[in-house]
């Protein structure tokens, strides 16, 4: 299991390959990766991701440990950036490895649902005209937790 919280960019392809190589006995590997999109309204110049150092790592570790136990994963990976990003930048990725595909898929969705609403990250969109706006949590993201 590997949990990384960092300011620096990361190489999604290389991380996915390394995770898959290390998980040879698993059979099934699922990855999710998130990229900074344009804001829903107006051209976004930048996204700032604030986090809570110390708590972030603990929260991600707990979520990943629960996923590994519940779906008997052979491995799990979470990488999440903070700081300033621009549209097109990779924000984060998760990866799960299991013997069967459904376990790998479900565990990756679980990781994403919990990471989104229970790990202490906050996104702020800075538009080209200088206006800034904290991204609001979505009801649907909170509700997504009810399925687990």
């Amino acid at each position, binding site marked *: 299991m590997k949990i990384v919280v960092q300011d620096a960019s990361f190489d999604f392809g290389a991380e996915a390959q390394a995770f898959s190589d290390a998980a040879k006995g698993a059979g099934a590997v699922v990855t999710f990766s998130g990229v900074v999109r344009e804001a829903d309204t107006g051209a976004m110049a930048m996204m700032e*991701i604030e986090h809570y150092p110390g708590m972030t790592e603990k929260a991600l570790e707990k979520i990943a440990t629960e996923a590994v136990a519940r779906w008997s994963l052979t491995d799990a990976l979470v990488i999440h950036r903070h700081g300033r990003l621009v549209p097109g930048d990779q924000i984060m990725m998760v990866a799960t490895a299991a013997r069967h595909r459904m376990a790998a898929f479900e565990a990756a969705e679980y990781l994403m649902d919990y990471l989104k609403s229970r790990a202490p990250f906050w996104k702020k969109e800075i538009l080209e005209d200088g206006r800034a706006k904290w991204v*609001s949590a979505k009801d649907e993201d909170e509700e997504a937790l009810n399925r687990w």
Partner: protein
Amino acid sequence: MDVMYFAWVRERIGVPKEKIETSASTVADLVAELKSREERYEAAFSDLSALRVALDQELSDFDAPLEGVREVAFFPPMTGG
């Protein structure tokens, strides 16, 4: 006790972190005490349903006791991923 603020809570209060001397017994008591101190706390804590609290880096709630707690953090619902 260390009190930390994140995202727009931090912006409204104006500092990311401060030391607070308090005898409040629960998180809600601490919030009430802060709100009575200065306008900026009133602005930050006006709607508790829009806030989350962590005690010693674990998510908690406003009824939780503060005894033994070293670090309290207030922030809006998280938006990671």
